[in-house]
């Protein structure tokens, strides 16, 4: 019995050691396994050949890992905290505020001539607290896509649009006046051109040109007036803005010809083309007699992780390699959004009228605020919009949203 136990123990130990060695070996390899890039699924495949080329040129393995688009930012921060993050992150510029306060990314140092080659708004978007934190490669903003078979002319104002839309609805050509996603909880991103055209703003501009969290535009009289204007086109008014239209159904409304107008970004273009709808792209119109609409501009950028163990390579990749026009062109071809490199944007704009039209629609756009305080705005502000569109009192809705935001910002 005793002998058998001893044998058992020895056997167990041997087996365990063997497993551990196999496992241990793997562990030991990983940190030096080369550079790791995190990107969302859409961009992973495009980046792979370039990452490989970069790796081969420098004698190191470069791995592009796909991370789900909804969680990539949170996963990155968590991984950074645990010391197991990637070396390079591909993501949106409005994460910068949060990534910086968590110390997860480093500033990037681009020579002035490279900065000059980039779109000004893109550079502004990736500049935070006076420092450049990411190298932008693509931009996106909202535009109005219209079904040219139903509405041949681009509307000059929201009133124009609603007039044509209502006429088409009365004639039974369409079901809805406008395809604008609102949903039950609101969608400030898609509402922004209308909100700004009606005179509202989110944050004032500070001395350094960045959004100033101490000057909150929500709750100011101008924002109440803006909401009153929006309410005129809500469910109790013209019925152009509706809570029943959300991100899930808005695309099919347009592609099935149930509405003639669709407020969306370049990401919807593929679906529209696939559906075979004849379309035209124009800037999102403003209200009659209102301000010029200011849509949000979102910028996709490459970031250097501060926790990177291959920082020299990561910096090299981000500052010297991704500013290459060839890569920008390839990224554009995989996912047609206006490139941030002026040279490429011009070339692409000539060849592809759609991208040019989106760039034009964003000409008046401003970068989405990247300050962490913006997190406090989305939820209450969206709900206020949804409430007003559903017929609630604009003043009460805006003021309670402003109170919730102020309480959070402190």
């Amino acid at each position: 019995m005793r002998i058998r136990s001893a044998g058992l123990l020895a056997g167990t130990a041997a087996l365990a050691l063997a497993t551990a060695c196999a496992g241990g070996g793997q562990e030991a390899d990983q940190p030096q396994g080369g550079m790791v890039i995190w990107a969302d699924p859409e961009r992973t495949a495009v980046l792979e050949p370039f990452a490989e080329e970069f790796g081969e040129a420098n004698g190191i393995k470069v791995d592009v890992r796909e991370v789900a688009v909804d969680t990539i930012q949170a996963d990155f921060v968590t991984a950074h905290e645990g010391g197991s993050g990637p070396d390079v992150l591909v993501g949106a510029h409005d994460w910068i505020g949060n990534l910086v306060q968590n110390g997860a990314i480093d500033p990037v140092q681009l020579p002035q001539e490279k900065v000059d080659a980039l779109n000004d708004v893109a550079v502004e978007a990736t500049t935070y607290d006076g420092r450049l934190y990411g190298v932008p490669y693509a931009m996106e903003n909202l535009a109005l896509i219209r079904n040219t078979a139903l509405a041949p002319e681009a509307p000059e104002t929201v009133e124009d649009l609603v007039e044509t839309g209502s006429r088409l609805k009365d004639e039974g050509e369409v079901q809805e006046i406008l395809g604008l996603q609102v949903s039950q909880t609101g969608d400030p991103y898609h509402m922004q051109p209308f909100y700004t055209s009606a005179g509202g703003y989110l944050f004032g501009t500070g001395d350094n040109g960045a959004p100033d969290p101490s000057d909150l535009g929500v709750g100011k009289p101008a924002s109440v007036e803006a909401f009153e204007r929006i309410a005129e086109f809500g469910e109790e008014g013209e019925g152009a803005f509706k809570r029943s239209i959300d991100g899930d159904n808005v695309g099919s409304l347009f592609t099935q010809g149930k509405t003639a107008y669709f407020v969306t970004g370049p990401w919807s273009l593929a679906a529209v083309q696939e559906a075979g709808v004849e379309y035209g792209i124009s800037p999102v119109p403003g209200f009659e007699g209102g301000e010029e609409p200011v849509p949000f501009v979102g910028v996709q950028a490459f970031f250097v992780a501060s926790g990177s163990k291959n920082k020299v390579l990561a910096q090299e990749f981000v500052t010297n390699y991704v500013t290459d026009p060839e890569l920008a062109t390839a990224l554009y071809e995989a996912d047609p959004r206006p490139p941030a490199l002026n040279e490429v944007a011009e070339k692409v704009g000539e060849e592809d009228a759609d991208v040019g039209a989106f760039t034009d629609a964003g000409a008046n756009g401003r970068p989405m605020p990247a300050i962490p305080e913006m997190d406090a705005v989305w939820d209450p502000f969206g709900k206020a919009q949804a409430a007003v569109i559903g017929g609630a009192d604009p003043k009460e809705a805006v003021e309670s949203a402003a109170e919730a935001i102020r309480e959070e910002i402190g």
Partner: protein
Amino acid sequence: MAQDRSSAGGAPGGAPARPPLPGGSLAPRGSAAGQAAKTGMLALAAAIALWAVFPLYAAGQWVGVGVVVAATALIFYVYLSKRAVPAKYLLPGTLFLVAFQIVPVLYTLSTSVTNYSDGHRGTKEQAIDQIEASSVERTADATAYTLTVAARGSSPEGELVFLLTAPDGAAYAGDEDGLRPLTGAEVGPSGKITDAPGYTVVPPSEANSRSEEITGFAVPTGAGTGIRSSGFSSAYEGRSSLTYDSGCDCITDSRNGRVYTADDERGAFVSDNGERLPQGWRVGVGLDNFLRFVGDPETRSSFVGILTWNVAFAAGTTAMVFALGLGVALTLHTRHRLRGRTAYRLLVVLPYAMPSFAMFLLWRSMFNADFGLLNRMLPGPDVDWFGQPWTARAAVLIVNIWLGFPYMFLVATGALQSIPRELVQAARIDGAGAWQALRQVTFPLLMVAMAPILVATFAFNFNNFNAVWLTTEGGPFPTDNPLAGATDLLITYTYRLAFGVSGAQYGYAAALSVFIFLIVTVMSVVSLRRSASLEEVHR
């Protein structure tokens, strides 16, 4: 078990008096297969332990190493010793209870007294490092150099030197002493230096393995400025504007002379005029998170309403899924031949078999006021399901019941089949009607099996985040309060407070979880006590 307990009392600490344990006669011999299984399981435990220890050892987590070693030693002692028979049964469950219940609760408690949140994740040292590192700025009109990383001497492992080419073609060598002109260098087409006398060019992969050294290196060029690398093929002249001084425990901004002093209560560097640097660190805040929740008048007023609806939601769901599940189970539990009984059962179980995530989203679109299937099928005017409090509540309940009743049906079918039919037949012979037999014979026996499941269903639905978040997101929201919606459960409400409005606030979230944990615990204890009385039928 009862026998075991009384005997243990009879012979305190005396092994000889121990009566034969259940299965004890088999224990000494054991079967070959049993021995093999035991060996296999122990080997697995050892393997897992070794797998877990190495990374902990590498990270210097000695407490973790200690815990793993102790747990493994305990496992080996219990299963290799012939004495600790009851422990052999209890150990796996106990270990899992500790690992998956007690440790998370303790961790949540310890987090709830910190300010752990976005901007306060790491240590003070990390925050300082990051503040200094991210404050490096390119000097105005700085020259952009082409960089070649090199080492002094003939080995690439030698002392680090930056070989720099200015845009005008001039070459320099920079080290810790400063910048010197470089002569005799061969410059490649990209501007990089390919060869220089006295230096060895470091290849990129080699340079990468010296990352830390290279990124920390600056060739001094003047007061506070230095030439730093940006990757391995470009360099710039820059200065670090924020510097930490441990003497005053503060950070000085050289651009405007502003001083940010460390505030160890807030975990941030704060200047005199109240401005703070974004990078903070994690500190203990005592009961602040709890007080913040209790002290906020708005939260207090919302809380009672949400709790009431939460209880109603969980109780309503439980009651309805039970009634519906049992009803269907009884219908299909007939003695008569029922054609396609299996097909019916399969159909009923379908909602349970489908991924609930997708089902919630599907139901959400079916409830859409303008385009939803329900409004199109129902006669009368369109109902704005998610736009009004009571219709939204009804909608959430309907979806949840639809998803939940198949499980009850499965359990009830199993329980019904375990009740001998003779009992009901005897009752019928004694003159009981069908209803009376069901109510007084079948039902009490059924409840023995069902009561704990009902308690579990209640507890699960009390925190059924998905059912609400994926359908209504807690809405509709009253115009005067965008934080507390009509269908909000405590868990969705607190999730919004902790994560929805201002980044991730783990400390606050943990404090809120502690509240919910207490509420659920109290409710579960009360209901388990009450359901224990149902077991009286066995006595």
